[in-house]
Structures are given as C-alpha cells and as structure tokens.
C-alpha cells in the first residue's frame, strides 16, 4: 500500500532523513517512534507530498507522490503535528471546506461530516468557531479533517497530543476501528500507545531506521538483555570482586545510594541466564548482605531509550546493532577477568587491581553520562535546525 524507498532529506549539511525504506501493507497500523528531531515529521511531510525529498521515492498504491501528486494525495488524509485549522471558521464550515477541496460528492458531504463529527466526538461543538475551542477539541477537529473523504491512507502525526486520558483511550479505539478500512501511519512519543495500537513499530533516530518489528517481537528481542536491580551492604570493591566471579555478566552500573553503607547496582546479564541465585551466594560469600534484588524486564520505554541512546553514541548501523553491542561489552569483561586470574596469583597486587576495575567501571559510567549529555545537545541542535528549515 505505502512503499518508501531510499528516502533522503537534506537541509544544507544536516541530514534530516537518511536513506529510509519501508513498506506498509493494507490495513496495517505502523507506529513511528523516535526522539525529538529524529525525522518523524519530516518523513511524514514527505510521504504526504508537503515537502519534496532530496532523493528516493514514495508510492501510495502505485502512485508516486512526487511524480503523480494529485492521484496520490487523493488517497491520503493527513493530520500534521500542529493541526491545520482555520481559526475563524466553525467546525462544520471547516469540515465542509475540507470535503470540498477533497472533492467529496455534494450529496454525500452532509452525512459524511455528521458521521465523522460523531466518530471524533466534536458534534457538540459543531457550530462553534475553532478559535474558541480547547486544545483537545482542536486536536480532534484536526483528526476529523484528516478522516474527511475516507482516504485509504491516514497519516497522523502525534494524534493524541493535548488530549486527556479518557479522550486518549477514545481516540486510540477510534484509530483501531479505522484500521479496518484504512492503512495508518502514526507517530507518537507515548510508547504505551504505540504498543497498544500498532501492528508494527519503527524506531528511528537521526533520520535512520534503527529497528522495525512488531511490538511483541521487539520486547522479546530485548528480553535477552536481563537486568537485575541489586541493593547490597558493603564497599564497592568488595562487591566488584564478588561479581567478577559470576559468569554471564555483561554490564554493571553503580547508581546513587539512598542510605548509608548501601550500594545500588544495575547488572545486565547475558541472554537467557538468570544470575539471581548466583548473585545471592556470591554476595553471601563476600559478606555483603542483600537488601533488595529485583529482576527487570525491559518495557518498550527501556528499549526505546536503549536503542536511541546507543545509536547516537556509537553511530552503529542497525543491522549489527544488537549483536555487536553485547559482543564488545563481553569481550571487555573477559579481558578484565583474564587479567584478574593471572593477578590472583600475585596476591599483593590484588587490591590494586580491584581498585582499577572499579575505576574502569566508574570511567565507563562517566563516559556514558557524558555521551548522554552530548546526545541531548545534539537533539537540541537538530530541533533548532528543523525549526529554521
């Protein structure tokens, strides 16, 4: 139904969308995820033919948006990030205007508009001027405008922004029911929404596709990365030493302690290995009583953060992303461990080494934080650039 091939958008030196390709089947709901400035809105603007692509093509049911725009646009209903409302029109006038420019037949117009107003629950404000409506109503009027003419493809840029929780659920249900007859692409910041509504999720960052899968598969995929949250009493090097004896640990993160003497750790282990039991014995042996131990399954939020952060930090390609990240971390750990085994023989140096490992961990953590900051900066910049464009 919708086919996007090698889509690129360049603003000067800034790549807003970098070689994006995907297809959406008829009746599917595709969810677009990504941080601010990831290129979601730019991509949607290109699919709807509002702006031209630097290169690449978009076809809607065989009609190229750039070469045969009129035919392609007939099949699209678009709700942009800011609903395009004429503030000095009443809701009915506005929808009638849209019906007219979308060339809806005169006989069908009145009934269609009544139906759509009921669907989007704006019929009680139908005679009011749009400028007097609240944000939530405006958003729903925008959505109603996109549905007018029942186009086959609906493209919704953050359709639930500004709505209250009850309205969000209603709109979600509406989107779900629309998907019976329409193909839908929607973008959102709210991840639970995407996982609740969409058949397929695409996470993009800095204009690049990072991963594209169904929400269930995505969670499964990431479940491999087991996270254990641990609170123990003891010193950092004592705990580090104990942890080094356990196989399958990929990453250790020290977090701030809320109580004195207690250390909080986030431990990531290899796929399909449950290290909780081992942890218990190791800590007991080291004489560090456990105050809390909890296994965390990754939610879509975690996946999102993980993927978008890491892709900015490492600039790695999406293909090798999952594997490579873990492999490298493992290798690092193994090297450390080998070194340690040798040095266990030289007992005098042991303490120094523990200190060093701890430093390393701290360093890794610091770097991580620094990069996070950088990521935020860059995000801010790209936001600005988008505004300028």
């Amino acid at each position, binding site marked *: 139904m919708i086919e996007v091939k090698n889509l690129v958008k360049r*603003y000067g030196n800034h790549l807003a969308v970098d070689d994006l390709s995907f297809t959406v089947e008829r009746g599917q709901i595709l969810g677009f995820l990504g941080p601010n400035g990831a290129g979601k809105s730019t991509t949607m603007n290109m699919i709807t033919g509002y*702006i031209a692509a630097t290169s690449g093509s978009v076809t809607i049911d065989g009609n190229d948006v750039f070469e045969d725009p009129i035919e392609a*646009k*007939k099949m699209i209903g*678009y709700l942009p990030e800011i609903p395009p409302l*004429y*503030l000095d029109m009443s809701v009915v006038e506005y929808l009638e205007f*849209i019906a*007219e420019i*979308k060339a809806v037949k005169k006989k069908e117009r009145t009934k269609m508009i009544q139906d759509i107003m009921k669907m989007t629950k704006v019929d009680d404000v139908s005679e009011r001027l749009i400028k007097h409506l609240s944000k939530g109503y405006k958003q729903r009027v925008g959505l109603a405008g996109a549905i007018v003419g029942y186009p086959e493809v609906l493209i919704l840029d953050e359709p639930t922004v500004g709505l209250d929780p009850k309205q969000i659920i209603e709109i979600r249900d509406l989107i779900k029911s629309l998907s019976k007859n329409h193909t839908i692409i929607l973008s959102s910041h709210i991840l639970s929404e995407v996982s609740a509504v969409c058949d397929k999720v695409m996470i993009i960052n800095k204009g690049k596709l990072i991963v594209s899968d169904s929400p269930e598969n995505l969670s499964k995929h990431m479940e491999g990365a087991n996270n254990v949250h641990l609170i123990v009493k003891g010193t950092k090097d004592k705990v580090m030493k104990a942890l080094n004896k356990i196989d399958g640990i990929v990453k250790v993160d020290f977090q701030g302690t809320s109580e004195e003497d207690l250390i909080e750790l986030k431990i990531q282990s290899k796929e399909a290995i449950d290290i909780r039991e081992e942890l218990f014995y190791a800590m007991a042996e080291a004489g560090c009583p456990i105050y809390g131990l909890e296994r965390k399954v990754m939610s879509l939020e975690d996946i999102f953060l993980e993927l978008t952060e890491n892709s900015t930090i490492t600039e790695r390609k999406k293909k090798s992303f999952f594997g490579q990240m873990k492999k490298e971390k493992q290798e690092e750990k193994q090297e450390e461990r080998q070194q340690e085994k040798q040095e266990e023989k030289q007992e005098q140096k042991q303490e120094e080494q523990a200190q060093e490992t701890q430093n390393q961990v701290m360093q890794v953590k610091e770097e991580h934080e620094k990069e996070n900051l950088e990521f935020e900066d860059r995000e801010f910049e790209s936001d600005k650039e988008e505004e300028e464009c």
Partner: protein
Amino acid sequence: MLAIFKKELRSYFTSMIGYLFIGFFLAIVGVYFMAYNLQGGYANFEYVLNSMVFVFVILVPILTMRLLAEEKKQKTDQLLFTSPLSVSKIVVGKYLAVFAVFVSAMVITMFYPFILSKYGTVSFKLAYTGILGFVLVGAAYLAIGLFLSALFESQAIAAVVTFVVLLITFIMQGIVGLLPTSNKAAWLIFSVIALLIAVVIYFMINNVTVAISLGVVLEAACAIIYFAKPSLYDGLVVKVFDWFSVVDRFDNFMNGILDLSGIVYYISITVIFIFLTIQSLNKRRWR
C-alpha cells in the same frame, strides 16, 4: 479552485478586512466625486479615478498581506498542499477571491456616471474606459501583492514590503525624469544591474561558477554594446525603468484611449506575478 475561492472570499467578509476595504475605498471615491463632479461641475468621472490611484498603495497591501503569509503562519498550508489540489489552482483561487473583493467595490463606482448623467451629458465611453483602466491597474497591483505575501511568513512584513514596492512603482515616473541620459551612464547602470542579477542568481541556486560566468557574460554584453553600437543605449535607461512604472500607462485610459498595449501590459504583469507566486511556493517546498 472554487472551494479556495469561496473560502477566501468568506474570510474577507467574516473578518473586518473586506468591509474595511470597500468602505474606505467608497469613502474616498465619494470625497473626490464630491470635489470634482458635484462642486467642480465636471461631467468626467475619470477625473475622480485619476486622482485616487494613490489609494492602491495603501489598500492593496491590506488586501493581499494575509493571502499566503497567514496560511504559512497558521500552518494551514499543510492542509492545502497535501490536498489533491495543484499549487496553481490554490494560487489562482486566492487571486480570484481578492480580485473579486476589489471588483465588488468597483461595481459600485460604475453607478456614478449614471448619477452624473441625470444632471448633464456624460461621455460614458470616457468614464468606462477610465474604470476599465483602473480595474486593470488594480489587477496588476493585487498580483504583485499576492506574490510578496508568498515570500513572507509575517503579514506585517508582507504588507510593509508590498507598500514600499507599490510606492516605488508609483513614483517611478518622477525617478525616471532624474535619470541620466548619456550613453556612458547607461553602461554604468546596466553593468550594476548585471552584477545584481549575478548576485541574486548566486543566492537562488548557490552555485558560484554559474553565477560568476553569468555575471561575466552579462558584463561583457554591456561592454560590447557600448563599444560596438552605443546608439542602442540612447534613452534605454528611461525605457527600462519606465517599464516598471505601472501607473504610467493608466494616463492613456484616463484620456479615453482604449490602449491595447496598456491592456496587454497590465494583463502580462498580472500573469507574470501569479506565475512567480506559484513558482516561489513550489520552490520553497523543493528546498
């Protein structure tokens, strides 16, 4: 196109602008009608129009400023440009709407010659040639205003720039009289213009080689003409600048001459600026 036309027309009359324009326009017509025809006792309605060409400078920016600038500001252009309407249909629909507002005011002025004819002999041919000329000048100015509205996102800036541009075309007649007529001065002026064109081209397409080579070619052409056939420069500056003097050709209509070249001139100005509007909107989206 009809939908856009209707929507624009309605928005002129749901906001104050449409009434303001017609009211202000008719008030000024009334003042001059009073002065020339009623108190002065002239039977020529075209004198009224001749004296009030200046109102375009004030009223056209008010009418055209919001046409496209407003859409951009409110982001409603996203609705229009993603709808199954071509850009040219949108632009032409908008132009026709603003033209219709102007014409609706002009239709009322068409009754004045009839009022006059009650009190004496009026040459209707003269009066209506004048009105036709006035409508044509208005059509050209509205197209210029529409184009400038497409370039800016703020209504205020669009209005001010339109005002300045119209003012320049208005006083062009006076400026032309001050221009030097010697061939050397003509060469200088045209080489400066050639340079400006090259600079503008550079900013439009961001290509140094093309801009420089174009500039060199134009400068060379200017120099060759000066040395090979300097007589070509005779009065050329005046001619070229006269071309921008939109009001100039209105004088013929005032004198009762149905000037074909004038009609063609105004229609081509209108068409060129509507075309430029469409191109600038397309270009913005292709950037």
